[in-house]
């Protein structure tokens, strides 16, 4: 055996870089997922970010660097502000109501053991259905004259009303559809979490004389906090990326009354073909959502005293 000369720093670096067969395998295994992720997520995100600083390319002249011009246009655009206001109202309307409903339904279903699977299925249907189909069903509910709502109202002697065609009610109508869709979805998470809570906790509480409400408030609700955080973040993100049923039901109308941020992006990008403006608005939306998610984690994580 020959004594080895001490390795120079350069050799050490080279040695660590030289791929052993295991690392090669690891990279090869990661490659398909990485490629897809880079191609369809990372690259588009980066491209959007870059595009938002350039003008929209036209046949006569290509894209030129315009700095923050696209962002300035957003700020000056009254429809952006309306879409933002609409979206905030939509979020305030959907998030608490859908989470509250989900929690209520989950607790209710969890208390009744018989037929649990069937009920669970029923609640899950809205989630399984494609949003386009859902929107069509609700479109029928809201249609004036012969829609379900109109028929119900006329049975009680009420007048027909164009729910989706009126600036006063259109946003409320699409909010209700979103609540209907989200509540069932969130309920599944709550139900799963509730079933993780040992039944003996409920029995111990009953023996101690705790009412149903007391048990919910002092035991079930705190134990559901991790689920609530998860659901809340999802609800916020969903509220700001709603677009499909808006397209089917109102196309943002009447008079932009139901235009939400993502719909506005869609409109800018694919109706007006102003891709730079769309890119800039996308960046605004992404930044906003990222900030909200981060804030929720930091704020709520501290209050979840579980485990």
């Amino acid at each position, binding site marked *: 055996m020959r004594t080895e000369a001490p390795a120079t720093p350069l050799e050490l670096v080279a040695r660590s870089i030289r791929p052993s067969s295991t690392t090669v395998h690891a990279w090869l295994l990661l490659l398909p997922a990485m490629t897809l992720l880079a191609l369809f997520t990372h690259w588009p995100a980066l491209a959007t970010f870059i595009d938002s600083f350039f003008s929209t390319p036209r046949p006569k002249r290509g894209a030129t660097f315009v700095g923050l011009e696209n962002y300035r246009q957003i700020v000056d655009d009254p429809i952006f502000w309306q879409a933002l206001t609409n979206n905030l109202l939509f979020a305030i309307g959907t998030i608490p109501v859908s989470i509250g409903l989900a929690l209520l339904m989950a607790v209710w279903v969890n208390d009744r053991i018989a037929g649990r699977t069937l009920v669970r299925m029923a609640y899950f249907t809205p989630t399984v259905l494609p949003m386009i189909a859902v929107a069509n069903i609700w479109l029928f509910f809201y249609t004036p004259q012969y829609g379900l709502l109109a028929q119900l109202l006329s049975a009680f002697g009420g007048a027909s009303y164009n729910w989706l065609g009126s600036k006063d009610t259109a946003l409320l109508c699409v909010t209700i559809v979103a609540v209907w869709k989200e509540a069932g979805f969130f309920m599944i998470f709550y139900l799963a979490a509730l079933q993780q809570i*040992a039944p003996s*906790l409920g029995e*111990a509480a*009953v*023996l*101690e004389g705790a009412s149903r409400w007391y048990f919910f408030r002092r035991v079930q609700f705190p134990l559901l906090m991790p689920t609530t955080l998860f659901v809340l973040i999802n609800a916020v993100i969903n509220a700001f990326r709603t677009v499909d049923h808006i397209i089917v039901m109102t196309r943002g109308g009447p008079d932009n009354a139901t235009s939400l941020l993502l719909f506005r992006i869609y409109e800018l990008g694919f109706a007006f073909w102003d891709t730079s403006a769309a890119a800039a608005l996308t960046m605004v939306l992404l930044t906003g959502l990222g900030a909200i998610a981060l804030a929720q984690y930091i704020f709520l994580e501290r209050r979840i005293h579980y485990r």
Partner: protein
Amino acid sequence: MRAAAYMIVTSGRQDLAHGEEPLAEVELRSVSKRWGEDRAVGPAVDHVSFSVREATLAALLGPSGCGKSTTLRLVAGLETVTSGSILIGGRDVTSVPPARRKVSMVFQSYALFPHLSVAENIVFGLKVRGLPSPERAQRLHRAADLLGLAKLLDRKPSQLSGGQQQRVALGRAIVAEAPVCLMDEPLSNLDAQLRVEMRREIRALQQRLGMTMLYVTHDQLEAMTMADQVLLMRQGSIEQDGPPCELYDRPASVFTARFIGTPPMNVVPATALGPLWQGLARAAPPGHGRDALSIGVRAELARLDSCGVEAKVLAIEYLGADTLIDTRIGEVPFVVRMPGRPRLVSGQNVAIAWDVSATHWFDAHTGRRIA
């Protein structure tokens, strides 16, 4: 520690004296519980009747699935009876909701609230009942001292060992100062040494506080060492109800005989006894043929004796103070317990005998005791 224990005794008793029902006797009258409608499946609890005197500890003992937990939950009110009635302190509570039965319960899984601290867990029920905060603190500290939990009050249950969690569950039952305490296999999650320790602690606590305790276990040793009264269950019915020594000394059936005691009692058909039968025959209960009798003998009351029945040694288990000799009389297994360390080897032929007075007589068909 002693002083604290004394305080809790006096205060516990005083509170009992203040209540309308000073007696905390538990009585079941022909209680049955059937799960579901299927007639083919027998009831989980089948016409069970027993009564537990005030301030005593009764162990509900039996093999897995015999209905112990169901019986306990019926007493707690967590399940409803199919028929029969339950009385606590002379009051019919059959249709009284659990919270108003004045019972506390320690669950097998402890049922501690994972998000609450030890202190909050212990006073949970007191808070529900709206007890004033100074009184709550007082009871909490008494219980914590008694159970050695004083240093752990701020911890969450997940930060405790099994034994500590068990004591928190006990603490929650104690502070309720309910006259009746129900326990469902509270020690089954603990290691052997801790079990022995907790067994003593629970028994001592029960006696100090004068609680009436119904204690479910499938461990006959636990039942024998702790209980004033053992309720041996089998397939939903009470097989035998009596003090531990009675179950050991006068088992009412082959089932009891073999369930109580380690090793289980030897039970041999009378026809297998060969020459030994001559000596026993004169003591045999009249009116039963030899082939209708089974004979039971405790391992420690049998001895090796040249004028006994022939047996073959299968194995020898040396336990220190004594030795178990595992033999076969023909095809029937028979264990002899002998002091010290006898010089025997497996495969050797021996002869076994016992006194007439050590003989238990059972009906070979029904398994019931005769005389």
